[in-house]
């Protein structure tokens, strides 16, 4: 099967980025967005064609989908063995990611024509969107870790550029810096991990690395270091990079602030695609994790579970609708990470892996929908705060219906897609670790609660005084909402168990009622509580928050994570480490250099008088010298 053309999927948005970027002063808004949408449509069509071709027409070998190198070229050749390639790797998860990225990106491109209309820098926005799409496509089709790392940083930079899109707003600038620095800090560990893995296994290539019978896995974990094998450490470090991008604890602090960017950006980057890069990374290296370093996988599972619980608790107290969604994203990504952590390699044990990818897919669709819906609401009322919303179902009928669908999906109400994917995750957790299972079950209830709190606060409840009547979004914004809502319906029926598994072979799944019934029940209870508390304006929320007292305050302030970071960075690192280093620099390094300059200057000042410019003085010196030498010769002093 020939997949050479897949290299065009990332390249077309790159060209669109270059065209819009270089000509952004010359092009009209319509043309710029037209170029962006056309490029993305091309990638979209090719991605779907690839998916069709891969899943339906490529023949399986031994009942398993094969990993295919579509295109490969040596990019940087250092030595015979060490070279960095660029290319496309076609396998179930990369094809699935291509579909996710192209769908959401195209929808966001279309949506932004309405949402960003009349903004300054409209063309700049579209060029950055294209840059991001290019980077994300490049990331998902990576053939080796280094290519992934390159694109990993590129998505980071596009995220930075887009969060800081309103660069005249100080909070947006601070948020973009925070996002970049935090993820970059995590990426440092990622790089160390990459180099360690490369050192142990002698390869950076994903195919060689993840082949369960290959030499990379066969040679085991390397020497022991502090009680764990080197491979385990390396994989934990790589996971830290993933945790930084995917906003897992303790690197989650950038995600809520990243909501300063325009809402379509939040939908594309901080909900659907970039933040799941960490999940994708672990999934990509999954055989290595599973066989070489099960301890690392255990860490992955717990980090995911704790993050998802933490984020769900915080989300119940936030008032900014985008922040609620941001914490919800973090919580759902926690689900995916946990699912990977509790997964095994073959057969029914591998259900976690499948569930994680399944949830990634459905989550991308419904969370993008939620964000775009929130964007439509913000577009209508010009505020992010729930307090200034309410009763919007009358004014925004389309947004209301699609938002309701997405909310039901994330709450896990059957038969919407969220139910299926979440159910699979819970099944995987149930068979692996009961503790994680109960955390996840509780989080499922919380998710339903805070999402319906959001829904009721925005679309029901008491209507505040609007300065002008809110009106529903234009067609360009409605279309993506409806398209994604349609996806939220049908995505649950896609046969992921046949398509996306660790070893490429289909696995049997069946509904386990012992998991499905409690999960749905928790969801419904959450919805019911939210309905009682928020459908009409009541005093219950205030009473409950008062009853929780301190705990509520902690939660509202996100457990003071930002403050802890501020304390560590400013008080400890800046004050103690940086200040002493700066003192050393100023008083030792700089002073030495200054001293050298000073001595030179002073001595020059002293001998400057010799250079009088008067030939007579020079002549005097010359003749005196000549006379002295002559006398010396006469007196035979040289012999």
């Amino acid at each position: 099967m020939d997949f050479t053309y897949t290299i065009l999927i990332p390249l077309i948005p790159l060209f669109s980025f270059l065209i819009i970027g270089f000509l952004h002063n010359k092009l009209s808004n319509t043309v710029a967005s037209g170029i962006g949408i056309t490029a993305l449509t091309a990638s979209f069509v090719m991605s779907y064609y690839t998916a069709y071709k891969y899943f339906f027409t490529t023949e399986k070998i031994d009942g398993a989908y094969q990993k295919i190198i579509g295109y490969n070229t040596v990019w940087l050749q250092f030595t015979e063995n060490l070279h960095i390639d660029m290319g496309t790797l076609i396998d179930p998860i990369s094809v699935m990611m291509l579909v996710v990225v192209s769908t959401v990106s195209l929808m966001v491109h279309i949506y932004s024509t309405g949402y960003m209309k009349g903004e300054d820098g409209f063309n700049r926005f579209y060029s950055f969107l294209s840059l991001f799409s290019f980077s994300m496509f490049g990331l998902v089709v990576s053939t080796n870790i280094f290519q992934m790392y390159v694109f990993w940083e590129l998505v980071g930079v596009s995220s930075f550029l887009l969060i800081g899109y309103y660069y005249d707003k100080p909070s947006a600038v601070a948020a973009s810096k925070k996002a970049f620095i935090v993820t970059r800090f995590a990426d440092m560990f990622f790089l160390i991990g990459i180099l360690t893995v490369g050192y142990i296994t002698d390869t950076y290539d994903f195919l060689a690395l993840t082949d369960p019978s290959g030499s990379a896995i066969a040679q085991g974990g390397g020497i022991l270091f502090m009680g764990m094998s080197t491979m385990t450490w390396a994989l934990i470090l790589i996971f830290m990079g993933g945790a930084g991008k995917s906003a897992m604890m303790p690197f989650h602090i950038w995600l809520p602030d990243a909501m300063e960017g325009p809402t379509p950006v939040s939908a594309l980057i901080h909900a659907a695609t970039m933040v799941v890069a960490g999940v994708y990374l672990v999934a990509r290296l999954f055989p290595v994790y599973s066989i070489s370093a099960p301890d690392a996988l255990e860490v992955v599972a717990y980090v995911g579970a704790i993050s998802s619980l933490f984020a769900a608790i915080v989300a119940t107290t936030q008032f900014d609708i985008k922040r609620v969604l941001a914490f919800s994203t973090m919580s759902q990504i926690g689900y995916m990470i946990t699912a990977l952590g509790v997964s095994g390699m073959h057969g029914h044990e591998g259900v976690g892996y499948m569930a994680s990818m399944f949830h990634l897919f459905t989550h991308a669709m419904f969370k993008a929908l939620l964000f775009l819906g929130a964007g439509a609401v913000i577009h209508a009322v010009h505020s992010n705060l729930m307090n200034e919303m309410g009763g919007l179902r009358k004014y925004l009928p389309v947004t209301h219906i699609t938002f309701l669908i997405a909310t039901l999906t994330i709450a896990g109400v059957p038969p919407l897609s969220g139910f299926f994917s979440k159910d699979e995750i819970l099944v995987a957790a149930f068979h692996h670790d009961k503790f994680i299972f109960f955390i996840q079950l509780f989080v499922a209830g919380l998710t339903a609660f805070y999402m319906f709190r959001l829904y009721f606060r925005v679309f029901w409840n008491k209507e505040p005084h609007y300065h002008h009547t809110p009106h529903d979004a234009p067609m360009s914004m409605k279309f993506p909402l409806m398209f994604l809502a349609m996806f939220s319906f049908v995505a649950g029926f896609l046969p992921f168990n046949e398509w996306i598994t660790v070893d490429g072979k289909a696995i049997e799944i069946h509904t386990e009622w012992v998991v499905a019934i409690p999960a749905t029940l928790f969801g419904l209870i959450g919805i019911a509580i939210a309905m009682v508390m928020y459908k009409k304006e009541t005093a219950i929320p205030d009473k409950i928050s008062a009853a929780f007292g301190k705990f509520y305050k902690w939660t509202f302030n996100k457990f003071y994570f930002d403050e802890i970071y501020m304390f560590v960075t400013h008080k400890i690192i800046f004050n103690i480490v940086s200040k002493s280093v700066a003192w050393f620099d100023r008083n030792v390094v700089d002073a030495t250099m200054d001293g050298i300059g000073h001595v030179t200057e002073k001595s020059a000042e002293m001998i400057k008088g010799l250079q009088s410019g008067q030939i007579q003085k020079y002549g005097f010196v010359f003749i005196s010298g000549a006379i002295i030498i002559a006398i010396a010769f006469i007196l035979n002093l040289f012999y």
Partner: protein
Amino acid sequence: MIPNIPLSYFFVVGTLMFFIGVFGFLTRRNLITILMSVELILNSVNINFVAVNRYLFPDNMHGHFFTIFIIAIAASEAAVAIAIILNIYRKFKTINVENVSEMKY
């Protein structure tokens, strides 16, 4: 022929003239005087050339050639130097070397 005058007398005169010229060159501030001092140095050398040629190698003419050569060079040098001095005077209204310090650091 003046056989009574020993060769060393010529050397004494030449040396005196040379050092008077050097002294003048180093101490005078007037460009014309400096030029004159230079002429004095050149002529002291000429005397030495001629005397040595006459006393030690009467059959050869090399010393004379050099002397004539130096006289010619000195004449042209004086012409160039005076032209420069005139121009300096026009520009600075002085020919004192200490006042002509436009190009100094």
